[in-house]
């Protein structure tokens, strides 16, 4: 007799999704990662809008990855029009994306994922027995948000980073204040690594994964122009359509990605696995000590990798501020350029993985065509693969199976509301 097991609504994830597993005895008949977030049609509504206001709109695809969307969007526009940025702009953008990682990872690692491993329904309940963990989370989150507020104008949906630079350059005092906060929360970031190194990676979640992440260049980071794929491949970001071949499914407003016919994974695990040799300082030491926690065959490693990235992000933030302060801050205005007909593609790492924006413009610089591919859309097929893997390996109660599946999905840090306004079908 077949039985249908479901998680109607995933909790402690961003957006609305569920799970369905159909079993016949021990045999797995079908699995689905359902997404029932409403569609918002971003690629359609931004048509005819002038490039200057596009990042203000597309950053609203997601609240928790708002700066990732804004930087992906700004980069695509700059690539279309050939905009050259100053070293100061590059440093400020690097600081902003690291701030976003701190804010997002602190929320996910400590407040959404950790309760699974300590046995609580949420961070508030967890705070009764683990108040230090929750206070660490809040201090880290606040620091990430402080970077957002200082550089972008506010925590969610800022506005100060623009095509060609920043509208207003932060003052020396403001950046020094951020630096002090970063130095203060360094132990909180390292504690996240300490906590997660203690949770074993269960064998029931092991399978082959094709990992993809941005090539950050010389040092570990989240901006770049090429994409790395496990197995040693390296592709220019312009080849993204090939890397994320998408298909529409009836049970999901999110299209599912594939590469060479199989699912792919993006996120912290791919970033750390593919570029760990580029880590520096404390994060490098922590990686060496706990490299067994970075298992490319076990997607639950993603939690540990986010914790490791937190240690990197905080230290890197301090370095970037030091570089900005020693160079001296300058109100340099926005780069000059002319809008024209053309197309621009840009990839950045959002907290939960690779994000692509692709725009075409008419001669006035208004959008004629847009394509946006979010990390959770890319992960959707891999999440379904993992649901199947866990269901096949599972022995024991059904309720336990569904719980293990939910913990696995949460480890991807899915951003479901992001995932629903995806690519156009050609």
């Amino acid at each position, binding site marked *: 007799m077949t039985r249908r097991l479901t998680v109607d*609504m995933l909790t402690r994830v961003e957006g*609305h999704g569920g799970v369905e597993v159909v079993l016949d005895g021990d045999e797995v008949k079908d699995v689905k990662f359902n997404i029932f977030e*409403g*569609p*918002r049609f971003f690629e359609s509504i931004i048509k005819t809008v002038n490039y200057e206001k596009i990042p203000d*709109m597309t950053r609203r695809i997601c*609240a928790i990855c708002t700066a990732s969307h804004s930087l992906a969007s700004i980069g695509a526009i700059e690539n279309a029009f050939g905009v050259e940025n100053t070293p100061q702009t590059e440093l400020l953008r690097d600081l902003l994306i690291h701030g976003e990682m701190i804010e997002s990872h602190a929320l996910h690692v400590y407040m959404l994922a950790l309760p699974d491993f300590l046995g609580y329904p949420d961070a508030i309940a967890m705070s009764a027995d683990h108040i230090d963990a929750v206070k660490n989370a809040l201090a880290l989150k606040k620091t990430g948000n402080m970077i957002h507020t200082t550089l972008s104008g506010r925590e969610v949906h800022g506005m100060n980073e623009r095509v060609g630079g920043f509208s207003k350059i932060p003052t020396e005092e403001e950046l020094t204040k951020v630096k002090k906060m970063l130095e203060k929360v360094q132990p909180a970031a390292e504690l996240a690594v300490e906590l997660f190194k203690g949770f074993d990676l269960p064998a029931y979640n092991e399978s082959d994964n094709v990992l993809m992440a941005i090539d950050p260049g010389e040092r570990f980071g989240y901006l770049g122009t090429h994409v790395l794929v496990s197995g040693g491949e390296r592709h220019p970001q312009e080849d993204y359509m090939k890397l994320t071949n998408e298909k529409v499914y009836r049970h999901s407003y999110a299209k599912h990605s594939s590469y060479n016919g199989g699912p792919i994974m993006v996120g912290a695990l791919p970033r750390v696995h593919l570029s760990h040799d580029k880590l520096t300082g404390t994060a490098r030491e922590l990686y060496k000590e706990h490299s067994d926690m970075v298992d490319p065959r076990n997607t639950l490693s993603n939690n540990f990798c986010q914790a490791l990235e937190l240690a990197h992000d905080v230290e890197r933030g301090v370095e970037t501020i030091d570089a900005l302060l020693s160079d001296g801050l300058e109100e340099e205005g926005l780069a000059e350029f002319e809008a024209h007909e053309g197309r621009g593609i840009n990839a950045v790492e959002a907290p939960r993985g690779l994000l692509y924006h692709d725009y075409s413009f008419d001669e006035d610089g208004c959008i004629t065509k847009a394509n946006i591919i979010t990390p959770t859309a890319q992960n959707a097929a891999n999440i379904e693969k993992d649901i199947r893997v866990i269901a096949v390996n599972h022995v024991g109660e059904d309720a336990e199976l569904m719980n293990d599946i939910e913990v696995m999905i949460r480890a991807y840090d899915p951003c479901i509301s992001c995932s629903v306004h995806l690519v156009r079908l050609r």
Partner: protein
Amino acid sequence: MKPRVGIFSLTGCAGDQLQILNMEDELLDLVSHIHIVDFQEGSSHKEEGPIDVAFVEGSVSTETDLKHLKEIRERSKILIAFGNCAVEGGIQAMRNKEGSIDGRLKDVYGVETGFFDAKLSKPLSEYVEVDLNIPGCPVEKEETLRAITSLLHGDLPPSFTYPVCVECKLNEYPCVIVESGKPCLGPVIRAGCDARCPGLGLDCIGCRGPVDSASGFAAEFSMLLEKGYSKEYILNRLRVFSGEVKEGFLGGEEL
């Protein structure tokens, strides 16, 4: 007894409930004063039964959203439309007056009607009675905290009835329309943000939605036309966070 509070989301980016989590300094204190019965993004704990105050973010964009909203309304004494999507329909309502939902489904997903349960994005007030609006994309943390404090004391908080221009003048920022010719929406958008964008040298993009008084829109429209912006450009600007505003608001233009 602590008031029973639910935090719900329909279609949107979840940025308004994120603003609650962004109250890092106040969060632990805040949750000690309320009893949270539903907060899908933050907790796996969920209770049935009546709700004293429901915060609902996101717009109604699917049949599922509508069903969910009606259930929440039935359970709740006070229902708050939380953020621009809930108050105005959000950025996804921008093209409500142009084209059809089927056209957009075809455009983005390449499929015909009947495939999904999508609807035109509408504010909560289209379907249920709303007791309080907290506007913004996203909502302001301070305004939200003030609202919660008022509600804990049994009051409804005051709302902003004047435009962003007032706060801009109070801050003595240079006018971005007059000084740099930027298409600022400050004259017709609800205050409460302390004129953040003009403070950064940027034009207001309207994320708090239109002020209650409609009279400014026609003037804004003709002023921007005079500055040399095209009709399509101005409409694209005014509609981003106000897709559902009534025809007359936009200078009586046929749209």
